[in-house]
């Protein structure tokens, strides 16, 4: 794989600040120097080498938003795009780690934040999110893993499956169901009653280091409950998923850009019928479709990150879902187009196209499948319309009255 990234559109014209552009260059340099040379090995061995995880940590790639001054969700997005350009698997490790970090930063008590967040930021501990179960995927609020208060803590029983970075994470944010409602718990890797079983042989994103977690009377102290019982899905897990969707959308743009760069390079070099294939109109059509789709996904990512910076959590959740929906469905098409354009070469181990193609399918499935997002976005839009109308009613009620107090 080339370690020189061709320049795409002029991002300065799209409103990125000088600081964001400088950070983007820094992230790209790190990704191309440290991650890209290992991408093929990670895909083949289904493992991210520990020294690379350490370098991610020392380069600040595992730091959450609480350490930003000022907070800059767009810069975060650029980080995910750059990492995924080099390796979707490595971006996945960073994403799940930051999803847990974000939930802790938002819903952790002061004590919990002091205890966990600095360790996560330095990479002293790696975190993973454990929501999905063998029988529960998109219907995440219906998890079957049970938690009950026992002594000075809680005891968890159940199974979690397809847990990204489950093989190496030091702590899991586990969604379970108490009698009173859903709740999330921080479960350290060495918690008694937790057994971790690696899952191998995935189609794509093969460096995700997936695992199945077996929680058999797994005991955690009371202060490992994150948020309140009853708010585990609606607030804590949703906060993590919202962050994860934006990050993943940016990652899809990164892989899509890698597909496009490879396609442009190949179309310029490959000659048939006495011409570079880029001269043929049907090839131009493929390239144009790829460029337009990736640029559109990039703009939706910008909007989603902008909403995280300036809007409320509900609006940010909606924009995150839209960005992830569009970017991930776009990526599967872009990766397919790039593969088509490469012909047999694209299916070989000589170029990374087949890896992009396999990774793209996984990225469309995780953090909300296309179908669940299609349902969710429409429902959320209806709900937000009612909220906007109700806020209008409030304006004619409390706000006017309070102004007169």
């Amino acid at each position: 794989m080339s370690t020189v990234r061709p320049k795409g559109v002029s991002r300065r014209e799209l409103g990125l600040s000088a600081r964001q552009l400088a950070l983007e260059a820094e992230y790209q340099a790190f990704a191309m120097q440290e991650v890209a040379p290992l991408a093929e090995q990670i895909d083949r061995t289904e493992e991210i080498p520990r020294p690379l995880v350490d370098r991610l940590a020392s380069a600040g790639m595992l730091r959450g938003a609480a350490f930003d001054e000022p907070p800059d969700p767009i810069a975060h997005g650029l980080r995910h795009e750059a990492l995924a350009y080099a390796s979707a698997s490595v971006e996945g490790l960073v994403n799940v780690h930051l999803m847990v970090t974000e939930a802790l930063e938002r819903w952790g008590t002061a004590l919990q934040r002091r205890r966990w967040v600095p360790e996560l930021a330095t990479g002293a501990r790696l975190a993973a999110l454990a929501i999905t179960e063998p029988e529960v995927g998109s219907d995440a609020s219906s998890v079957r893993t049970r938690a009950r208060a026992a002594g000075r803590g809680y005891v968890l029983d159940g199974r979690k499956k397809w847990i990204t970075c489950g093989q190496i994470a030091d702590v899991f944010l586990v969604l379970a169901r108490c009698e009173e409602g859903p709740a999330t718990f921080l479960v350290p890797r060495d918690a008694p009653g937790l057994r971790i079983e690696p899952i191998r042989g995935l189609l794509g994103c093969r460096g995700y280091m997936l695992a199945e977690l077996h929680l058999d009377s797994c005991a955690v102290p009371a202060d490992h409950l994150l948020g309140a019982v009853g708010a585990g899905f609606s607030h804590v897990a949703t906060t993590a998923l919202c962050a994860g969707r934006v990050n993943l959308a940016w990652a899809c743009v990164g892989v899509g850009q890698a597909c496009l760069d490879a396609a442009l390079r190949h179309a310029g070099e490959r000659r048939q019928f006495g011409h570079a294939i880029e001269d043929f109109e049907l090839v131009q059509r493929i390239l144009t479709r790829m460029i337009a789709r990736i640029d559109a996904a990039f703009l939706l990512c910008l909007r989603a990150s902008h909403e995280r910076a300036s809007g409320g959590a509900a609006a940010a959740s909606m924009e995150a879902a839209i960005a992830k929906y569009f970017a991930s469905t776009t990526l599967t098409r872009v990766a397919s187009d790039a593969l088509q354009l490469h012909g047999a070469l694209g299916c070989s181990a000589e170029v990374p196209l087949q890896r992009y193609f396999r990774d793209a399918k996984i990225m469309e499935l995780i953090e909300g499948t296309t179908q669940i997002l299609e349902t969710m976005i429409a429902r959320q839009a209806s709900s937000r319309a009612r909220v906007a109308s109700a806020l209008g009613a409030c304006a004619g009620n409390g706000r006017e009255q309070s102004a007169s107090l």
Partner: protein
Amino acid sequence: MNDGTVRDTVGAFLRGALRHNDLADEDDVFALGLISSMFAMELVEFVEREFGIAVESEDLEMENFQSIAAITRLVAAKSAVAGAARGMVS
């Protein structure tokens, strides 16, 4: 903002957003099945923005959000704490 105004504002918001015009102050919106996970986030955001308070981990108990009256009590309690803190600073 006094408790009556808070109650009216919360009531207007919940009745409108949930399309439940006859929602009474003590009606349990969770028991009535009116709250989705998406709307739960909207509700927290509304309370924070409308009344200028920060909803924290400790406030996430369902009892604090289960009715118009419960939310009114939460706002009053949080406002009192914030007011006392401002008094200590000054």
